[in-house]
């Protein structure tokens, strides 16, 4: 299992315990996310602070994880390291997800109204 999960202040924090979300990891990540978020709070915060590298396969897996949540739930991203931040901005995926520099930043704001 690459993920661990806790609930804090009405949100589910899912922590990625891996240094890379790359092509070799993408399918496992997507499956693990489905298992972790099958039910739970409407807001899920993905803690990426241990992830030092992501490629477009990993990016696609995060998009897939958001789709798996279904309508009425949201996936926010926290703790983006420089490479992860760069990949999200270059692909304009920073316009799709809410990005927070740290997990504290993410948990200190109320979830967006939908």
């Amino acid at each position, binding site marked *: 299992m690459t993920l661990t999960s806790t609930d804090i202040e009405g949100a589910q924090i899912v922590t990625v315990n891996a240094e*890379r979300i*790359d*092509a*070799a990891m993408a399918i496992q990540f997507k499956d693990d996310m489905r298992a972790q978020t099958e039910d739970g709070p409407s807001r899920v915060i993905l803690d990426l602070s241990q992830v030092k*590298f992501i*490629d*477009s*396969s990993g*990016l*696609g*897996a995060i*998009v*897939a994880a*958001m*789709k798996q949540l279904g*309508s009425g739930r949201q996936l926010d991203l926290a703790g983006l390291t*420089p*490479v992860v931040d*760069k*990949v999200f901005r*270059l*692909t*304009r*995926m920073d*316009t*799709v997800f809410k990005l927070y520099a740290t997990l504290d930043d993410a948990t200190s704001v109320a979830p967006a109204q939908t």
Partner: protein
Amino acid sequence: MVETFACSFTATELEARSGISAVVDQLRGLGMPQARVDEVQIVLAEAVNNVVEHAYAGHAPGDVNIHCNLAADHLTIYVRDAGVPLPDHQLPSGTPQDLSGPIDTLPEGGFGWLLIRELTSDIQYERSEGHNNLQLSFEIQVTQK
């Protein structure tokens, strides 16, 4: 002074991961700034993933050969494989995707060439003698101390 090094590996996802890491470690060891190393790693991962997923798709995975020339202000990486050619023997355009639709319709792939084009100064592709030859060029800002 030009530093040259090369590596080869079988085109599987796990071999690709260690091959990419080996190249990145070499570049870091040769003093390339970390931010540039990060960008090179993104480009190289996308280029190699394309070989694994497309060039050798449906075949036994063949070899990926990577050759790097690092000069003071310029890095050129050559990626060579014996898989099927790129469609129409042309580099894909890497056009940004439409992200404006509902979440259900968001693309989960097709970002690779966009990243490659945004992070390189030049790319060239040639198909010859049954091989794909991709040339990736990067400018490196040299900071004088």
